[in-house]
């Protein structure tokens, strides 16, 4: 039987290497997601502060981060900041910094949206019941905000995992780069390797992101 080229994936430790690369991808995503959720919550609360300077600062930060392609942000930190201040940042730390900055902006906007979407009468009714400010926040506002946040923030996780693929361009060895290495190392024996290896990377990303976004979609429908 003629070799289809698919066997490139299972030759030696090739598949294991791809999975290791995927693990690097996921590590960067998960660390950035964790940090973004923490800083994003704080940033979101900061955005609801009624102070002109705070609001101007938040607006500028949010919109600059949002309007720039993530790849540009990555270049700004990996090449720009390092050059400007003569510090050495590894691709790994640059990636974490950039995705955290970006995730914080996106998460912050979700948190702000969720807080603002709680109608005023919720605060007023709770106050009329004699609750203190802390009690209102803890028992009335927080539970509703969290509920509104869960689906969009799970969606943000898949967006961040997908965006992590960009670190390949600044030279990190993650799943896509590992795929390239496997293709190059086996170019002679497997001329059609690119099809199968990139196909496999495609499927791996799908297998990671699809369950998460399906869950987000389901929660969204349930809690609408």
């Amino acid at each position, binding site marked *: 039987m003629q070799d289809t*080229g698919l066997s490139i994936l299972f030759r030696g430790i090739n598949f294991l290497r791809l999975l290791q690369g995927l693990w690097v991808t996921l590590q960067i995503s998960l660390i950035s997601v964790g940090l973004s959720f923490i800083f994003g919550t704080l940033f979101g609360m900061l955005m609801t502060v009624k102070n002109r300077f705070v609001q101007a600062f938040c607006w500028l930060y949010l919109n600059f981060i949002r*309007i*720039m*392609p*993530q*790849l*540009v942000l990555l*270049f*700004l930190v990996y*090449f*720009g900041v390092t*050059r*400007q201040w003569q510090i050495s940042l590894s691709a790994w730390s640059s990636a974490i910094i950039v995705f955290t900055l970006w995730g914080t902006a996106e998460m912050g906007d979700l948190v702000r949206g969720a807080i603002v979407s709680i109608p005023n009468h919720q605060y007023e009714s709770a106050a009329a019941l004699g609750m203190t400010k802390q009690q209102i926040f803890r028992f009335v506002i927080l539970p509703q905000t969290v509920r509104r946040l869960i689906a969009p923030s799970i969606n943000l996780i*898949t967006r961040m995992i*997908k*965006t*992590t*693929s*960009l670190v*390949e*361009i600044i030279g990190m060895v993650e799943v*896509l780069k590992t*795929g390239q290495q496997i*293709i190059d190392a086996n170019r002679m024996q497997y*001329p*059609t*390797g*690119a*099809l*199968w*290896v*990139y*196909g496999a*990377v*495609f499927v791996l*990303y*799908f297998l990671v*992101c*699809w369950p998460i*976004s399906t869950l987000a979609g389901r929660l969204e429908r349930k809690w609408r």
Partner: protein
Amino acid sequence: MSVDILLEYLPLFVQGALVTIKISLAGIILSLLVGLVCSYVQYYRVPVLRQIAKGYIELSRNTPMLVQLFFIYFGLPKIGLSWSREVCAVAALVFLGGSYMAEAMRSGLEAVDVIQTESAISLGMNRFQVMRFVVFPQAMAVALPAIAANVVFLIKETSVVSAIALADLMYVAKDLIGNDYNTSEALFMLVVFYLLILLPVSLLASYAERRIRYAGYGA
């Protein structure tokens, strides 16, 4: 940062910007078409095609554009589908954008109340007229903010085509950093040019969103 270097770089970045704009325009127009077809197929519940559209949307939304691009540019030639860099870049952008546009339009179509269709039918309109004069205009009004957001998103996503050595803004900057080591100047120009392209588009998008919100209140 030196002004002389900035001026020297200006024509290179203009070239890069033109490539970015060309790829974006082609990608966005074709994405709108793909999105329209997919959302209609789902709206009218066309058997088989509907499942294909659903599968495509899930596949496209849950994978990064860079991986889609590499698969199209490096993978597909192995089975005889070999295209130029430009075509591959546009194809990847459409593969990604089609599903985002389809989702935006589908939610627009679904937002139009059934009673609108029923009333239009009872007035004697045929299926095409119902879509053309009743459902489509209302659906697009609802979908416009999401479509505009997708346009901004797709222009941003074109930055990854530099990975297949297509000379867009990103590639020009990367090239100059590598060749001349004038990092600050190259990055400054990169940010300025992306702002020049993206700022008007995103302002237009938020303007459209506000207008549509006013229109909704009148109803």
